[in-house]
């Protein structure tokens, strides 16, 4: 039996942030995190806690992945629809939402493995923990992260330029 209290205190914030970034929904992220800790409660032994928690969270999310793609499709439909309707957007909130949407799109553009490695790295997991959670070799993590970061940034910048071009067109 595990000292779930301690685990929760130590890792909940990290896990929720990771899952929020991954799933794009805080409620859902908290649900998954909570379920992860319940799993931890049932787990007899656990060697590396952090890697274990992230592994379990990843597995829990994977089952929902297909639904996620449907959700995204739906959201895209709503977004397109809304775009036609909105005339004068409220600035700051809108900009922030735009940033978030672009970040989301860029993150979603990564292949699954790159995305997970990057998000886990951002939560402070070291290469061996990431390797363990993803079933990869430690030696390949550097390359994976390099690729993930490059693609993320390049995609984000591309979206940003596209956005600016659109705004330029709208203004003229």
């Amino acid at each position, binding site marked *: 039996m595990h000292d779930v209290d301690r685990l929760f205190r130590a890792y909940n914030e990290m896990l929720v942030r990771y899952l929020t970034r991954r799933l794009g929904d*805080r409620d859902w*992220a908290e649900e998954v995190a909570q379920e992860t800790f319940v799993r931890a409660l049932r787990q007899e032994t656990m060697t590396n806690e952090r890697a274990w928690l992230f592994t379990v969270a990843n597995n829990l999310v994977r089952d929902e992945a297909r639904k996620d793609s*449907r959700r995204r499709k739906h959201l895209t439909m709503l977004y397109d629809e809304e775009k036609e309707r909105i005339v004068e957007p409220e600035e700051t909130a809108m900009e922030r939402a735009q940033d978030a949407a672009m970040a*989301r799109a860029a993150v979603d553009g990564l292949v699954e493995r790159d995305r997970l490695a990057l998000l886990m790295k951002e939560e402070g997991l070291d290469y061996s923990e990431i390797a363990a959670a993803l079933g990869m070799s430690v030696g390949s993590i550097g390359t994976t992260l390099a690729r993930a970061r490059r693609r993320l940034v390049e995609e984000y910048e591309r979206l940003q330029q596209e956005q600016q071009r659109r705004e330029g067109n709208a203004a003229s």
Partner: protein
Amino acid sequence: MQHLDEGTIHAWLDGELPPAEREALEAHIVECEPCAAAVAEARGFVAASTRILTALDSVPGGVLPAASTGSGTARPAVRRRFVASRGWMAAAAVLVLSTVTVIAIRPGGDAAQLRVAAATRDQKEPAASAAPSEEKPQAPAPMQSGTAAPADKPKSVDQTERLKSRLEAERQSTRMRSSNGAPPPMANVAPRARVAEPSASMGRVPEQTATPPAPSAFAKDAVAKRADAVSLSDSTSERRTVASASGVSITGRITSEAGAPLASASVLLEGTDIGTITHDDGNYALIVPASRANGQTKSLVAKLIGYRAVAVPIAPTSEPITHDFVLRANPLALGQVVVTGAGTTSPEKLGAAIALDSATVDSAAPQLLSRNTIHTDGDTVVTTVYSVHGVSVSLIDHSRARDETLRLQIRGAVSEMSAKSHAAAAAVNSISWSDSTGHTRTLRGPLSREQLEQLKKSLFAPTP
């Protein structure tokens, strides 16, 4: 040395290169201009990635329309999946063991003994201090070095509460399932967590077992005494005690006009990130960190979909605050829930696809439907719910939904982007809901078209 590959550079920036490689790399980039440029570029990527990912944190909950469907109904399905993959998990655990050098081996020992050990320590502490009191064991013990006990972050306390209530529910359900009366080991968990909270005693378990004190009669007595204390105190006052230890607590209960407790209502201190949701019994507890309890007046807002939000001004100081809310039903908000249609463009186009069984559902709008199976416990399949984005149908009151009647909650997800265009079709075998007068009504199904119409009318009915 050849030019560096990108992966090595990132590993170096992440501090993951072995010393020998690190030195070679550092020597190389001094001399090699292209590689120095590559390092600079990689640095940029690392920093920019972090910045981009940070933008994802501002996403609030419930933005994705069907997310709450996932939260309400997917959990049991996930659980089932987990059982099937437990073997795989064990394999993963072994993998972790073999690749990670820092290993915290948990004592496989007797849980009861560990508790006794923890209790003994707790018992000693107040004895050493000047003013021993009943409250003392529940106050957070000062951080001690040597163990990895994390800082007690006030922000996560309400989440801790939620987890606890969840664990409590698990414990109860386990107890109910065990027909022979012998409580399974799980039954120990929640009380232990409560007694220990928020002291970090569990974090010191390895330390304790290094020199296990013999469980003396004194220590056993202490355990028994504290168990009594916990069982006597009701959940609210207990929470209050816990809360006051790490900040200022705000507690209370949220009920409907009819006096029924409202579960999953949100309580938020406006303008802050301090908030929580109510438990099944309608109680909530949240903590304002001591640093922010400066007597400034803020709004405490209670909200639940289908009810009018209520805000009260409060000025947190060092005193615990208790405030109960009574929320009035707001059927107009429920008007945004469309129970019968399917479509995502406009209300005018809705209405065709009423789904009453799987065949109808699948042919009506296959790409919009997701299927969730609701369980009342780990194994029994009770009913199957088809839901569509924009509306979630979730099982409420997990712990008590053991009789035939499922208590389902229909929630309309009101997206910030487009409230009017959400649509849904839900077909369930049995459904309960509160109508606009606060009465609980139940339909057993499969629902007929007429029943569904009734349901719709009931949800849409204006306040009399």
